[in-house]
């Protein structure tokens, strides 16, 4: 188990370094930020000074080396736009994004798995078919358009919910969270639901497919032959079997939710890292882009690792480092 963990760690560091190089190369090719930040009437000397100040006059590999050294120590350079350390800018906005992603995921799981179970157990009933139809719609709706419609309906038309920003926050263990206040919840409602919709539909479909296969298995028949109640047969025997692939998916989708938050944050003006990224791309604020990407990559690696661990805990047939996991 320890050997496996060390090996994974090694692989992760390798991926991280590789990504940092790719990211740096890619971002290096984006226009010339100096043009954006410097007064268009500035003369050549101004430009040169600005370039030097931002370290952009050095050869590519030297820039990368400076960057790598800094990155290892947590210093990604200063934002061209805000002139504060890029990393602190990201970390500042990260809690808002994580809160949004987390709440969205919770909504998707709490609604998706039970609905999927119902659809899988009674696929030909009205409820089953309605749920499936609903999930296809939810799966097909483009997230950004749903956001627009939500704003149209609940903000413009009905005036029930605010359409942008984050509500009041309270500090929990040094991190500001907004779901503990009524105002915060009102602001969270639409963006979180918007973000959750796609994953919700995905989970419903997955749970339904898994349930449909599971109930055909012999162990379900055997459980019924033992005289177990239907609640126990479904709630224990079936559920534990279908949860395994679902948990894997949830874990992997968590990363995707954080990425998709970019869109939701743009629409609802939610002050998270996603919005920061879009703004940075438009303003060619390179250090921020790079810092964002590397923080996200690290986050994904951690999530993948945790999911693998969870998977081995849930499925007794899989032990890490031994036989290959049945992905």
């Amino acid at each position, binding site marked *: 188990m320890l050997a496996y963990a060390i090996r994974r760690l090694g692989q992760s560091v390798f991926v991280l370094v590789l990504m940092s190089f790719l*990211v740096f190369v*890619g*971002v290096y090719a984006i226009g010339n930020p100096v043009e954006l930040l410097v007064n268009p009437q500035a003369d050549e000397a101004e430009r040169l000074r600005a370039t030097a100040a931002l370290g952009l006059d050095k050869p590519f590999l030297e820039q990368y080396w400076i960057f790598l050294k800094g990155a290892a120590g947590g210093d990604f350079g200063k934002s061209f736009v805000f002139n504060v350390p890029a990393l602190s800018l990201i970390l500042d906005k990260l809690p808002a994004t994580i809160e949004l992603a987390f709440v969205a995921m919770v909504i998707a799981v709490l609604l998706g798995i039970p609905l999927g179970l119902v659809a899988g157990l009674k696929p030909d009933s009205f409820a089953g078919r309605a749920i499936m139809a609903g999930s296809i719609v939810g799966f097909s709706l483009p997230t950004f358009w749903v956001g627009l*419609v939500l704003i*149209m309906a609940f903000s413009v038309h009905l005036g029930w919910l605010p359409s942008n920003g984050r509500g009041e926050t309270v500090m929990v263990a040094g991190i500001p969270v907004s779901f503990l206040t009524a105002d915060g919840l009102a602001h969270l409602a639409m963006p979180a639901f918007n973000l959750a919709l796609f994953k919700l539909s995905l989970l419903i479909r997955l749970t339904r497919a898994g349930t449909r296969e599971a109930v055909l298995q012999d162990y379900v028949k055997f459980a019924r032959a033992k005289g177990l109640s239907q609640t126990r047969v479904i709630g224990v025997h079936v559920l534990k079997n279908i949860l395994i692939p679902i948990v894997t998916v949830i874990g992997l989708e968590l990363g995707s939710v954080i*990425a998709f938050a970019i869109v939701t944050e743009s629409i609802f003006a939610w002050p998270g890292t996603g919005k920061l990224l879009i703004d940075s791309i438009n303003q060619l604020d390179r250090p921020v882009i790079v810092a964002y990407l590397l923080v996200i990559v690290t986050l994904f690696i951690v999530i993948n690792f945790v999911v693998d661990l969870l998977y081995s805990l849930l499925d007794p047939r899989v032990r890490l480092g031994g036989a290959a996991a049945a992905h």
Partner: protein
Amino acid sequence: MGNPSAEGPWARFRAEFAESRLALAGLAVLVAIIAIALLAPVISPQNPYDLAQLDVLDSKLAPGEKSADGRTYWLGTDDQGRDMLSGIFYGLRISLGVGVASTVFALAIGLALGLVAAYFGGWVDTLVMRVVDIQLSFPAILIALILLAVLGQGVDKIVVALVTVQWAYYARTVRSSALVERQKEYIEAARVLALGQARIVFRHLLPNCLPPLIVVATVQVAHAIALEATLSFLGLGLPVTEPSLGLLISNGFQYLLSGKYWISFYPGIALLATIMAINLVADQLRDVLNPRLRR
């Protein structure tokens, strides 16, 4: 009841597909949408990108209102006076075109690499699959975003971004199927007969890997269209001169709060209809082609 063994596999496939009325409805809608996309220049009441045809005094008219010269704008106009209906027709054309083109290219690349990886095995396989794994562990939207930030705007650039994001699914699907098929005896037999490797791969291995691939490809077209719309909405990818549905929606966003919803709403409906139709068809395809649900 006809004798089942007398039907060919194609007839049986059609019959099984038709068991779902939803899927048939989806197919019908899809055919209609493709027809609109192909015929857009012919059937649109107005060419919204021909500046000579626009009258800025007609801007922001609500659906159903008439223009100064008596034409009805069935879905209203946008801030430049462009007819929404025509805009949607042209937008469908671009959205569908980009989606299908990128899927086709991604499919070709993924198919080639997947087959190569499965057939040759060894370090080739490991290399290809490592790249696939790393790429698939990152959300498509993130990769596409960064790529477009680097590459800039243009139809070709967004196709490149979409292809880059998609090829890995195909490669992985093909490789799994091919690995299973490779173990089977008919490949062994083909080898024993000393058939050329290319021939084995294309004539024998490939056709048996196709069913799961068809399902994946169909779903992916929908994903590609949705992804392109999202990227255009965020201002990346397609230039203003070739607006897809995503860009139309983005244009309308600023007018939402003042109640002029139709500029964003109707293109969104068109987008939704397209994606949903594709998903319905893909779902039924998957059920029909899935051996484990055979009863």
